């Protein structure tokens, strides 16, 4: 139909362009990549399946192709909690593939990583076959549509060789400790642009050139016999939901998606734009699926391959250039997928399957491994593509593109529970993950993969009809008698049930090892943790580490890296023993090249001991120090409580004492009040009852009544004074006062008392003292009070009282000295209490209210001074008031 050269030359030129761009980008790999490069590289999700297959599916089932693209959108919505965490973990642990990720999460299990690798390879084979089939079909359409199956095989083999070469050249050119393939990413991003542009071109051609705008296209399509079914939802709810869920899982779990999304991510900040940029890309490319499909239905002859409409539509319209463009776009879609997938798979096969085995072989620990690694990877890429070719040859013609792809999606979805639960649920265990993934894989194989082989007559069809050994419940399309679902939903349901059920069930049943728990903690708490999961307790010699690194990079570079790590760890660069942090750094460096599990084995061979999980130790230390902290706080609290209790007890005792004093005071007051009242009352009664008492006696009684009333008044006045003073209500008039004058007045006021009792009063008042700040009336009250006391207690006739005023320390002092009986030492402080008088209560009660000294002391204190007594029994007493200088 078309000249071969017309087709092959542009295709070859396009491949050349890709290589050129990749090589250029590889040279610029030291510079930080722009965010859009990462966003576009995620377009690797859209393969031949999207490019050719979606149109084919839309031609038959309308909008049913779409859930596969809605799922990734939903994952992107959840991207921050989930994808950001996966990204951070992968950076912290130098994750190189999805197998590495799952293996590392579950205690760096090599078994688990190997199983994941195996499933990834088996699951990817149909998907790669899909691409080969698409490429070979598209080339056949362009070159010779009439050629037979033999020609297709030959073309497919050619395509396989081409794609494998792509993979080797882009993905396994050298071993890179960072496992970043800048050239590969750039080429994939370019291919994303090309396939979108080519697909859009065909879509616009269909809508605007072949028809009079998109409404015109759909209006004409409405006349098609199948129009009604194509414009309503075909898939039952369960199938639609299943497709949506499986595509969500695939967004992360497909090896190539994990490679692009996680491993090739250079900067975590690029995730945010990718989260909406990637769905937007999917939206844009899917915008043209329906117009192209409907155009094909309207314009192409019945019976033409619906999967090839993208090519045959422009061909039929005579637009050869456009069909060539479409072919280039399709090639982009296919090559991108195969290259990234094979690179991802080869990394897994090499790091997680072969290397752990090779390292155990005798001699495996000595040789320079760079060459071996590259060889293994290249062989793995070629093997994976060849497997795809074989599958395509056997199965390819039985299924449409989308159906083949969905088989792979279901296989990849088996990783989702282990990843999602592993990132968020600390208690998910290795045993659970192992059993879950294995069971899910077996169910998948039984219900989807083996039937696909059987339907293509590779296996005997027997089990498809009767189940295993004729047991009906093992029927692959109706396991346990479950019918009414399409094969995909059916397989997805049973495999996920087994997978999640075992993962959760075994995880809650068995307790994992300390090391596994530490790894789990490092993953789940990645945003909180330091990122350093474990250190090596064993001693490794620097020379051994250098030799180890030297097997994967040039010795000079190895030495430089080691020195770098030592410097970063702040360790002594001359010490023969390497710091544990350095050993851990070497392990991470190696992990970046050969995966966590293998790096672990290698470093263990040098360090000689299994790692102690620092986090685990830290946790124990944390817990015990937490407990210590608690007990310390408790002790503190109990000490405080004790102190408070003691204080309260003291306060309570003081309160009780005060209460007792108050009671005593009240009883004293009532006693003091009753005594004069009783006297007044009894004499009044006598006067009242005996009117004919003689005058002299009457006057005598009246005199007693008057004197007792005066005493009562004095008592009440004193009590009010004292109460006011203590409550702070009394009005004080402070002014500069010459004490000498005040004291002379007081002496004069009490002169009659002295004369009555025959007691001599001597004044010794210093005349040259400065005035003090005082209330003159109150000071006089104090002096009168003390003088009255002195008179009372001095012996009548022979008593001598001296009133002195002199300069004292800090101010001036007033002293009243008598020669009375004195005050016993035990009473000296008591006499200042209210109603306390020296002497024995009722019997020899001295005259006075018993409040005088209390009032005097309160006045002295109000002046900032003191009132004290000194006395020796039998030698008189000295009351001294000190007042501070003004």
């Amino acid at each position, binding site marked *: 139909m078309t000249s071969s050269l017309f087709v092959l030359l542009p295709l070859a030129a396009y491949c050349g362009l890709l290589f050129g761009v990749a090589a250029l980008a590889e040279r610029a790999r030291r510079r930080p990549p722009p965010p859009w490069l990462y966003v576009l590289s995620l377009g690797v999700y859209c393969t031949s399946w999207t490019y050719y297959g979606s149109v084919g599916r839309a031609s038959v089932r309308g909008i049913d192709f779409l*859930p596969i693209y809605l799922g990734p959108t939903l994952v992107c919505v959840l991207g921050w909690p989930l994808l950001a965490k996966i990204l951070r973990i992968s950076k912290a642990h130098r994750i190189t593939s999805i197998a590495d990720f799952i293996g590392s999460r579950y205690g760096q299990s090599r078994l688990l990583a190997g199983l994941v690798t195996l499933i990834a390879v088996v699951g990817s084979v149909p998907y790669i076959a899909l691409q080969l089939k698409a490429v070979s079909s598209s080339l056949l359409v362009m070159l010779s549509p009439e050629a037979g199956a033999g020609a297709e095989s030959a073309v497919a083999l050619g395509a396989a060789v081409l794609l494998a070469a792509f993979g080797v050249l882009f993905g396994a050119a050298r071993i890179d400790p960072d496992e970043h393939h800048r050239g590969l990413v750039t080429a994939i991003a370019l291919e994303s642009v090309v396939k979108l542009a080519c697909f859009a071109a065909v879509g616009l051609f269909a809508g605007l050139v072949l028809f009079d705008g998109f409404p015109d296209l*759909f209006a004409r399509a409405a006349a098609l016999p199948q129009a009604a079914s194509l*414009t309503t939802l075909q898939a039952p709810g369960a199938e639609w939901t299943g497709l949506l869920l499986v595509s969500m899982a695939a967004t992360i779990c497909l090896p190539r998606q994990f490679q692009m999304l996680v491993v090739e991510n250079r900067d975590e900040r690029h995730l945010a734009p990718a989260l909406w940029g990637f769905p937007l890309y999917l939206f844009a490319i899917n915008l043209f699926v329906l117009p192209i499909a409907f155009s094909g239905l309207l314009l192409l002859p019945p019976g033409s391959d619906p999967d090839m409409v993208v090519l045959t539509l422009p061909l039929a319209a005579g637009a050869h250039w456009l069909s060539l463009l479409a072919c280039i776009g399709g090639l982009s879609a296919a090559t991108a997928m195969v290259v990234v997938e094979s690179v991802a798979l080869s990394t897994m096969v090499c790091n997680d399957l072969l290397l752990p085995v090779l390292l155990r072989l005798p001699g495996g620990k000595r040789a320079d491994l760079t060459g071996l690694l590259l060889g293994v990877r290249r062989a793995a890429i070629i093997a994976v593509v060849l497997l795809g070719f074989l599958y395509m040859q056997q199965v390819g013609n039985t299924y449409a593109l989308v159906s083949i792809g969905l088989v792979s999606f279901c296989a990849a979805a088996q990783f989702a529970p282990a990843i999602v639960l592993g990132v968020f649920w600390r208690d998910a265990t290795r045993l659970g993950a192992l059993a879950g993934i294995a069971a899910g894989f077996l169910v998948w194989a039984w219900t989807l993969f083996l039937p696909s082989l059987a339907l293509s007559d590779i296996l005997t069809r027997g089990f498809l009809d009767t189940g295993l050994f004729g047991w009906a419940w093992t029927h692959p399309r109706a396991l346990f008698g479950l019918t009414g679902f399409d094969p995909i939903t059916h397989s997805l349901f049973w495999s996920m049930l087994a997978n999640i059920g075992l993962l959760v069930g075994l995880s809650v049943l068995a307790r994992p090892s300390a090391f596994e728990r530490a790894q789990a903690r490092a993953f789940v708490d990645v945003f909180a943790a330091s990122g350093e999961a474990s250190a090596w307790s064993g001693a490794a010699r620097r020379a051994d580490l250098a030799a180890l690194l030297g097997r994967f990079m040039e010795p000079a570079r190895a030495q430089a890296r080691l020195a770098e790590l030592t410097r970063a760890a702040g360790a002594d660069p001359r010490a023969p023993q390497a710091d544990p942090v350095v050993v851990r750094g070497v392990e991470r460096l190696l992990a970046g090249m050969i995966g966590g599990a293998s790096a672990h084995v290698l470093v263990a061979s040098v360090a000689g001991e299994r790692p102690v999980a620092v986090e685990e130790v830290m946790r124990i230390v944390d817990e015990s120090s937490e407990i210590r902290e608690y007990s310390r706080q408790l002790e503190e609290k109990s000490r405080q409580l004790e102190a408070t209790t003691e204080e309260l007890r003291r306060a309570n005792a003081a309160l009780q004492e005060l209460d007792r004093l108050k009671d005593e005071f009240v009883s004293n007051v009532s006693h003091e009040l009753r005594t004069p009242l009783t006297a007044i009352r009894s004499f009044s009664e006598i006067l009242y009852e005996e009117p004919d008492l003689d005058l002299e006696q009457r006057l005598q009684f009246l005199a007693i009544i008057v004197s007792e009333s005066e005493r009562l008044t004095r008592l009440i006045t004193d009590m009010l004074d004292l109460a006011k003073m203590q409550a702070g209500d009394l009005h004080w008039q402070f002014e500069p006062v010459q004490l000498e004058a005040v004291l002379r007045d007081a002496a004069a006021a009490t002169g009659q008392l002295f004369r009555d009792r025959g007691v001599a009063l001597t004044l010794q008042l210093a005349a040259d003292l400065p005035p003090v700040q005082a209330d003159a009336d109150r000071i006089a009250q104090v002096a009168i009070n003390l003088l009255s006391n002195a008179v009372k207690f001095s012996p009548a006739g022979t008593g001598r009282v001296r009133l002195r005023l002199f300069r004292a320390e800090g101010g001036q002092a007033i002293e009243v000295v008598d020669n009375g009986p004195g005050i016993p030492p035990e009473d000296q402080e008591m006499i200042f209490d209210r109603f306390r008088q020296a002497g024995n209560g009722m019997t020899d009660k001295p005259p006075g209210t018993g409040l005088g000294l209390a009032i005097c002391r309160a006045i002295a204190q109000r002046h900032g001074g003191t009132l004290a007594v000194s006395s020796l029994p039998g030698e008189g007493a000295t009351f001294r008031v000190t007042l501070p200088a003004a």
Partner: protein
Amino acid sequence: MPAMNPDPQTRGRLGALFLLGLVLFLPPLVGLAGPGTVLGIPALFVAVYAEWALVILLLAVVLRHAGRRRRTHGR
């Protein structure tokens, strides 16, 4: 780079948007738009693509808003 851990409000918005997407993208809502056309295009197609575009738009708005707030808070 703690900025990668979204703030609680952004988390809540993304969670709500996820639920909205789930409701819009799953039966019965996804197939609700019946026969008939909008601007000459089958109503089902217009509805599904419009819902899809809405979710992407809201996602972009939420992420850009979170990014802006993170930058201003960072200073």
